[in-house]
């Protein structure tokens, strides 16, 4: 019942918002968004405490991996909903109901992905997230966002199509062993799966879902899309969409690990991971736009996730921990960037300087976020990245650890250059008739969300609550690894 409600309520609300004439116009129904987000988080929290049974013949179910992704989705969505309250007062979107409808549909689709144990249902949900976000990317309706939306649609659609082919390959691998495409049956009968089809399925699903994640070399849509979409949409994409796409890859890795083909999967995962790190490090140097910078940072973190998955052992736990930390940190950074865009109109280095004076709260959070996202202690990402590097050394791949650390160092330099450049210095003199350069009153709605996220990421750096640790360990073991 709860599983049904988790996706049916946002979906039904989305349909109502998009269809009912009462919602026409530019006003965004923020109260509705807050209520749905709050209810969603409440039900998800209840799932932690009170377990549930599978529904629809096992198509939807809750397992540690899925519950982690679901929680991340729910938390980020609620924080974004709170942020939207302050955002729409300053910058209302052109069509309120497309905005709200798209967001709610996105929540429903992401929930389906997190809960799906039938791999074709997972695909349907993944495609739905792509489609739900597209109108949101395109909100500003200008040339640049048009171009970004078109590239996003074309590349994502091809990727998702390849993932569908991979799903069909998986069905071919199964033959008749167990109920088709159901995860528990796939894992139970893993040794009976046809190895050639399984390998092909793994590759196609990796490439297909990797395109949605933004792994190199399928990442080309990311900087454009994150750069042109409204910041809060980019935050949801970087925090939730990539996590859901990673879930797709993790599911097929579960099956591959259970089938004993881990030795085939690992080098592929490692290759994609290292390539993403290298690409991110290369393109971050000299970036001038904070949102594009964060997009490349997202590519880097996706590379780390896949790297940890490929390394196995404690690396799988590191990946799970990193999943949580990265999503929350990205959400935080993008929301802060949204504040900057609201205040100065752009997120580029050319238009922003001396933010510490004009937007003190946001600037502080931005700098703290810089340290968080690049993996500095005491934030949570340091712990997760350290775990992954430790897995590399433990597994006998010291050179992978070295390459990773080098990439992280380069990325830190590149990001710090831009962010510190924007934050420090003298603010540009305001043209006559504009607000005088002084501290702008920042609405608490716009700041409380990022502060909460920052607090969680900080806490996760020093102390991981017991239930969370247990959940992440169980997920890591399902992925063929072990706990810390």
């Amino acid at each position, binding site marked *: 019942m709860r599983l049904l409600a988790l996706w049916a309520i946002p979906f039904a609300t989305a349909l109502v918002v998009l269809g009912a004439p009462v919602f026409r116009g530019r006003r965004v129904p923020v109260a509705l968004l807050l209520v749905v987000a709050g209810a969603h988080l409440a039900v998800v929290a209840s799932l932690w405490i009170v377990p549930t049974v599978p529904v629809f013949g096992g198509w939807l179910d809750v397992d540690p991996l899925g519950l982690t992704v679901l929680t991340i989705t729910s938390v980020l969505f609620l924080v974004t909903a709170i942020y939207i309250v302050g955002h729409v007062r300053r910058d209302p979107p052109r069509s309120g109901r497309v905005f709200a409808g798209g967001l709610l549909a996105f929540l429903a689709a992401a929930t389906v992905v997190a809960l799906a144990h*039938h791999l*074709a*249902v997972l*695909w*349907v949900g993944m*495609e*739905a997230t*792509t*489609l739900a976000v*597209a*109108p949101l990317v*395109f909100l500003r*309706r*200008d*040339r*640049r966002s*048009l*171009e*970004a*939306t*078109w*590239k996003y*649609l*074309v590349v994502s*659609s*091809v990727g998702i*199509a390849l993932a*569908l*082919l991979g799903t*069909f390959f998986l*069905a*071919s691998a*199964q*033959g008749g062993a167990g109920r*088709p*495409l159901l995860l528990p049956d796939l894992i139970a009968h893993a040794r009976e799966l*046809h190895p*050639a*089809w399984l390998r092909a399925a793994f590759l196609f699903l990796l490439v297909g879902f990797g395109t949605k994640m933004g792994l190199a070399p399928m990442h080309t849509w990311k*900087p*454009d899309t994150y*750069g*042109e979409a409204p910041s809060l949409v980019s935050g949801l994409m970087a925090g939730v969409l990539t996590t859901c796409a990673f879930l797709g890859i993790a599911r097929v890795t579960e099956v591959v690990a259970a089938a004993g083909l881990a030795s085939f999967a690992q080098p592929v995962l490692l290759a994609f991971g290292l390539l993403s790190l290298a690409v991110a490090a290369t*393109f971050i140097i000299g*970036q001038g736009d904070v949102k*594009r910078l964060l997009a490349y940072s997202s590519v880097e973190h996706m590379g780390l996730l896949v790297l940890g998955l490929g390394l196995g052992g404690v690396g799988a736990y590191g990946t799970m921990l990193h999943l949580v930390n990265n999503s929350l940190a990205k959400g935080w950074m993008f929301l802060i960037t949204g504040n900057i865009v609201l205040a100065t109109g752009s997120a580029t280095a050319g238009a922003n300087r001396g933010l510490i004076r004009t937007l003190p709260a946001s600037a502080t959070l931005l700098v703290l976020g810089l340290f968080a996202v690049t993996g500095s202690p005491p934030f949570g990402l340091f712990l997760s990245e350290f775990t992954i590097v430790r897995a590399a050394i433990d597994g006998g791949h010291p050179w992978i650890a070295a390459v990773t650390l080098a990439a992280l160092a380069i990325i830190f330099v590149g990001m710090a250059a831009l962010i510190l450049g924007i934050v420090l210095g003298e603010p540009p003199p305001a043209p006559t008739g504009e607000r005088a350069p002084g501290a702008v009153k920042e609405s608490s709605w716009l700041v409380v969300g990022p502060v909460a996220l920052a607090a969680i990421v900080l806490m996760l750096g020093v102390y991981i609550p017991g239930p969370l640790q247990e959940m992440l360990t169980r997920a890591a073991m399902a992925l063929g690894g072990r706990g810390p």
Partner: protein
Amino acid sequence: MRDAAQIVLLLIVLSDLAILGTSRLSSCIRGLAAQGVLLGLLPVLIAPQLSIHAVSLALGTMIVKAVVLPWFLAWAIREAAVRREIEPIVGFIASQLLGALAVGLAFAIASRLPLPALPQPLLVPVSLATLMIGFIVLTTRRKALVQVVGYLILENGIYLFGLTQTESVPFLIELGVLLDVFVGVFIMGIVVFHINREFDSLDATRLTELTD
């Protein structure tokens, strides 16, 4: 039934090659509609016995792929007032040769795949061929609308492969896939409409402002 299915599959490959060779957008869409009809006929032709599943899938596929999507694309063409594709990145003659090569490759690969005994052995090579040709159209054409056509051909190829797994992929999933494709193309059509308004042309190679 087996021969009828075989003829339908061959006609699908012919429609792929026809779409590859034409420069008129309306011919592309008519070819796509023809493909939709052929694809809709297949579930009924390859099912061992007629079932509700097969018939409803056939009907749903035909309605979406042969009627709704081509009609929508035709609307987009009318809105954008485009009639012809300009010389693509890979010329028309080269595309046709590439398409024929793709068909050959698809048959070669399919003969090497460890396939179980399928009721219709031509299904896999034709699906691979359609996939590859859809990819060729998607990547080498300049007009955004033709890229959408290429994406739809790609999806048709994957749908064909899915037909080898009719037992594993229940009707609801197929419906979900169809719906996703429909909504996807719908959104793409809207974006194409706006691209035409904004850039005054549908030439996707002009979308070069965003770069690093």
